[in-house]
């Protein structure tokens, strides 16, 4: 039982990171109808920026405190994501308004390769550490209930708290501010939003920036666990089944979908793996997504598309 709980918790932690990446996809898709293939590249780019700025900033400013260095690095990385959002709107999206979804998807593919290359050119392509002072030591919980207790990484718990906080802030922003209301309006109907004077261009910059921030947070959490390296971009591929599961237009869907995939991966690996020779973790998510595509193509929470004929 303790082992089951450990596996479950491990899955939830992994799933939470998938959720964060999937959230980036959903935000951009909702507001602009663009399937942003570059979300994974944005995670890598943001994480690289964070790692390298944290390394460089103390040298530039002669700072002693690592804490302050990290804070400044985070602000710089966030600013960089803002510039990136602004450039993407200026150079790409603005010229592709009202184009086919496929055209926009191809454009984001281009952005993906550009970001992969550009990020490694300016920040380097080695493996970098992000050290934001997350505790590394494991703790044992419920020692009274189970023999030996349940092993939990304190780092994962912190990460979960940060992710929850981010999601809470985002929903506050979307539901309670007039900018958030404008974002939801744009997501529902571009033309009507324009008719009441909501500036589409500015909204797109905001949305891509918010997606950039979720990428940054995901990148920092992932990077501080496993180091920042090119393989981070594959996290985005893990987020694809999450979106299929949760629905491309649903924020809660992205979160719950991520958790289901994370838990499913770990549990299936441990409990089904031995019967088929292991390796389930790698393809489990995609199989689950396939099943969903067959029986519930709009995902758990997505809007059912009803076409008038």
């Amino acid at each position, binding site marked *: 039982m303790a082992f089951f709980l450990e596996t479950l918790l491990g899955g939830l932690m992994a799933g939470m990171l998938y959720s964060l990446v999937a959230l980036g996809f959903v935000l951009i898709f909702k507001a602009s109808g663009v399937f942003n293939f570059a979300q994974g590249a944005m995670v890598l780019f943001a994480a690289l920026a964070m790692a390298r700025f944290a390394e460089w900033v103390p040298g530039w400013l002669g700072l002693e405190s690592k804490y302050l260095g990290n804070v400044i690095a985070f602000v710089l990385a966030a600013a960089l994501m803002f510039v990136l959002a602004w450039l993407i709107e200026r150079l790409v999206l603005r010229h592709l308004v009202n184009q086919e979804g496929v055209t926009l998807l191809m454009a984001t593919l281009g952005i993906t390769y550009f970001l992969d290359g550009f990020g490694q050119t300016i920040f380097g392509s080695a493996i970098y550490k992000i050290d934001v002072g997350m505790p590394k030591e494991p703790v044992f919980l419920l020692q009274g209930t189970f023999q030996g207790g349940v092993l939990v990484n304190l780092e994962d718990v912190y990460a979960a708290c940060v992710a929850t906080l981010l999601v809470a802030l985002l929903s506050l*922003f979307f539901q309670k*501010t007039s*900018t958030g209301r*404008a974002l*939801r309006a744009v997501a*529902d109907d571009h033309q009507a*939003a324009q008719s*009441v*004077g*909501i500036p589409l261009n500015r909204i797109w910059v905001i949305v891509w920036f918010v997606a950039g921030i979720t990428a940054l947070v995901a990148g920092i959490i992932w990077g501080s666990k496993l180091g920042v390296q090119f393989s981070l971009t594959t996290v985005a591929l893990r987020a694809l089944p999450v979106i299929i599961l949760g629905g491309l237009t649903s924020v809660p869907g992205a979160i719950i979908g991520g958790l289901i995939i994370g838990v499913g991966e770990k549990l299936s690996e441990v409990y089904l793996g031995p019967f088929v020779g292991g390796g389930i973790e790698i393809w489990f998510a995609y199989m689950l997504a396939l099943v969903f595509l067959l029986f519930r193509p709009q995902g758990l929470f997505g809007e059912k598309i009803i076409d008038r004929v």
Partner: protein
Amino acid sequence: MSAKKIGDVVLDVKNISLSFGGVKALADISFDVREHEVRAIIGPNGAGKSSMLNCINGVYTPQQGTISFMGQTFDHMDSHQVAVMGIARTFQNLALFKGMSVIDNIMTGRNLRIKSNLFWQALRIGPAQREEERHREFVEHIIDFLEIQAYRKTPVGQLPYGLQKRVDLGRALAMEPRVLLLDEPMAGMNVEEKQDMCRFVLDVNQEYGTTVVLIEHDMSVVMDISDRVVVLDYGKKIGDGTPDEVRNNKEVISAYLGISH
């Protein structure tokens, strides 16, 4: 409509031509709209009424002609700029934010008037909170006016068609526009709903002095509530004047009834 004073020309459309590929949607259309009047654009299906409205609103860019609004002349309008200048519109095929509540839909109409920045909005304190409350109060007036109090929090996607039309009007009213463009506000409504909508449009026009440009193909409705009428047919202007003048215009009669004279 006696108390109302009709003012100077606010919107002046000159020689507008618009074509899509080989199809000429509008050919050399000119007309003006005076302040505080109800100006109707009528015509059979496919006459180019909605295209005309979309040119004024900046959705389409006409190949020829100019549009002047309050003394400023434009070759083409920009959707955002149009909203800033005080022109609001409703849509023929409802373009509401379906997932959002009635209040939120109408609140989006206040978007341009919200001044406090994002940071204060997020914290909901001080001036931002007071501002939000002030706008909310204004929106409540509109909700009362349109008699949709009971549906405040309902997602508009769940409302019946006639009520959605009202929300669409409410969102446009929330902008406190100088000119209100209504694209077939009575389309698909039953007699009772049409009467309600007529009453709302006339009340807005008379109480707030809002200039109304109205598209309709139901002749009877238009003749009752408009001050002046433009008639389009196959992208051409075939009549312009008071309802009585238009009613007796031979070209208009033949366009509507299809008889040769």
